[in-house]
């Protein structure tokens, strides 16, 4: 039997992965959750029909959304992670001994439960005693915080569905308020390649730029995401994304598969068409 998972990357473009086994299918209050075993990518997590992560390439996304801000400010102590129910982001953060507090705010409890069940290695960070998970709306949580966090990581789904509120001006404004004077916000910023998402990239960047004095973009190559070319937002009150504190960061002695200091420098060098898009 030939079983394939398909996802439309845009109108007229389809991406497929061959499936070994359908491990889980369920529906939460917020979305449909599916987990498959695949030949090439290991286990993969699908939310509302869209591929969220694969065991094979998750390291790229998660290393890039965590080590970039940590290398800019290795003294970060209090972190808020929004979304990230799969655990990949937290797994990288708990590698830093100097971090004191990691608040994870995920709207969908079922995603966390199922990821713990099917991705035990990826979710191992949730057991760290510095981590506390709250199941609520990210926008609501951040609204009540003021001048507290050093870093906010927005590890959200796409801007349609439950993650919608995390791409709004009111969300970024409330994040600004929740961050202290050293504050950095990093978010997953979609792909600039296909026309259908260009507008989102542009608008999201504009909203961040209106909220933070510093607002930049960096990129990574993620094979299973639409077009493979993925952007991250780097917004902050004080630091530029390329102000790397190399000496301090290296002291942590963290082993990476994708991230390194040279790549960090280069990740902020954007293709011309992206530069023009966000002008």
């Amino acid at each position, binding site marked *: 039997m030939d079983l394939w998972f398909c996802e439309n990357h845009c109108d007229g473009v389809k991406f497929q992965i061959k499936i070994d086994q359908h491990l889980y299918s369920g529906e939460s209050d917020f979305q449909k959750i599916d987990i498959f075993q695949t030949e090439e990518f290991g286990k993969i997590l699908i939310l509302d029909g869209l591929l969220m992560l694969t065991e094979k390439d998750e390291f790229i996304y998660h290393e890039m959304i965590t080590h970039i801000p940590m290398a800019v400010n290795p003294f970060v102590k209090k972190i808020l992670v929004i979304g990230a129910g799969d655990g990949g982001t937290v797994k990288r953060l708990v590698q830093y001994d100097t971090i004191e507090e990691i608040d994870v705010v995920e709207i969908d409890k079922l995603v966390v439960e199922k990821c713990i069940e099917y991705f035990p290695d990826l979710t191992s960070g949730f057991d760290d005693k510095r981590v506390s998970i709250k199941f609520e*709306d990210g*926008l*609501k949580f951040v*609204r009540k915080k003021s001048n507290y966090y050093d870093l906010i990581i927005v590890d959200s789904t796409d801007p349609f569905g*439950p993650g*919608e*509120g995390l791409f*709004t*001006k*009111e*969300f970024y*404004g*409330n994040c600004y*308020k929740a961050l202290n004077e050293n504050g950095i916000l990093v978010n997953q910023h979609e792909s600039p390649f296909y026309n259908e998402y260009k507008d989102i990239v542009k608008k999201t960047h504009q909203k961040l730029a209106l909220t933070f004095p510093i607002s930049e973009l960096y990129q990574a190559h993620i094979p299973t995401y639409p077009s493979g070319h993925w952007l991250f937002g780097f917004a902050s009150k004080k630091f530029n994304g390329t102000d790397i504190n190399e000496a301090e960061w290296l002291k942590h002695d963290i082993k990476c598969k994708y991230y390194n200091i040279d790549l960090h420098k280069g990740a902020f060098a954007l293709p011309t068409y992206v530069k023009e898009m966000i002008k």
Partner: protein
Amino acid sequence: MNQERMPIYEALLNHRNNRIVHFDVPSHKGGRGNPELTRFLGADCMRVDVNSMKPLDNLCHPTSVIREAEILAADAFGAKNAFLMVNGTTSAVQAMIMSVCKSGDKIILPRNVHRSAINALVVCGAIPVYINPLTNKDLGISLGISVDSLEKAIKENPDAKAVFINNPTYYGICSDLLSLTTLVHNHNMKVLVDEAHGTHFYFGENMPITAMAAKADLSAVSMHKTGGSLTQSSFLLCGENIDESYIRQIINLTQTTSGSYLLMSSLDIARKNLALHGKDIFKKTIDLTEYARHEINKLGGYIAFSEEICDGVNAFAFDKTKLSIHTRQIGLAGIEVYDTLRDEYDIQIEFGDIGNILAIISSGDRLLEIERLVASLSEIKRHYGKSPKGLMSQEYIEPQVVMSPKKSFYSEKLVLPLSESAGKIAGEFVMCYPPGIPIIAPGEIITNEIIDYILYAKEKGCLITGPQDMDIENIRIVKE
């Protein structure tokens, strides 16, 4: 009665399946004649945009499926009869007034009515006797009608034919409808209720009393506002002592003879939905609204008011589905918050006036949207909040009526700059839209206070409508 039935919808489905050949209007012939519109609205929608025909009945003289839909609606609303209205609730309000008043007849009404009511007076020539609703000074909103004030107006005008009551107001304030109705009937006058914002009272639990339950004679219900039907569709309800055949004649004076089946079927489907699921739908609405109110009040500065403003007299009850928010304490006019929500946060609310905003919450909302509204209000306060000093509070300006709306509207007029018009008789309306409550109506004396109010509202960004001069620099006054 079996509220599962939807006679108009069922007839349209039948009609669609019968594949009738059309040599009648509309000329788009099920969409083929206008491919661009069909792509936009969808072929299913175009195929049921049809004209009256035997199996689909006729709105002007209903005998089959439309009549059945009327009977079902009357049953659902607890009315003696219900009319499907396709020219908006405005037409229902006008039909109510024209049914009980002729030229020169008096009608008692609060001045904070929707323009549609005063428009009806322009058309039929009835003379308004205004009751001045009290204002809640802290919030700057007009309240309901007290029994005492109505009693006084009736004593002074025993010859009046009817009393017109808007219940609830746009902000959700309700009057003591049962006592008012009893009082009016004791004086042999008719009670007309503008329930444009109260459809849900008929279907939700623990709601303020409805016009029909209070034995009012006629009521205009905007099904499209909070009942889920398409924009412009509405019901006119009749109480026990109303001759509905006469009402139908009055409706037919101004109603289209090409009633839209899209609108009528939406009324039919929405009525069924509310009759069967109204309790759940409006419980969810209230839960969402109460949550939003609680969170917004915690932000500080904003006052998302509710039942606590009730005093048993001028504000007898409050419609808890309404999310009305007073904004003056954060130093912003309601209209400024309204504009900022729209321009900077992509959030469209129902209206903003001088001191308040109103957000309509329904079962179609999700917590996600509520969180966005709350977070945006929090941000607006953080960015733009200031001292309320210098902000005008909304005062009810008591009108001085010196001429009937009809006479002044049709009299010879002069155009004057608004700033020089004090002391003159207005020949046209001026209002902020929404809410569409006239600041000045034809036949009323323009005062400096009114001019200041209009200029202030204009400066703050209210959409001012009514005058022929679209820029509202000039106003037409009655030539004396």
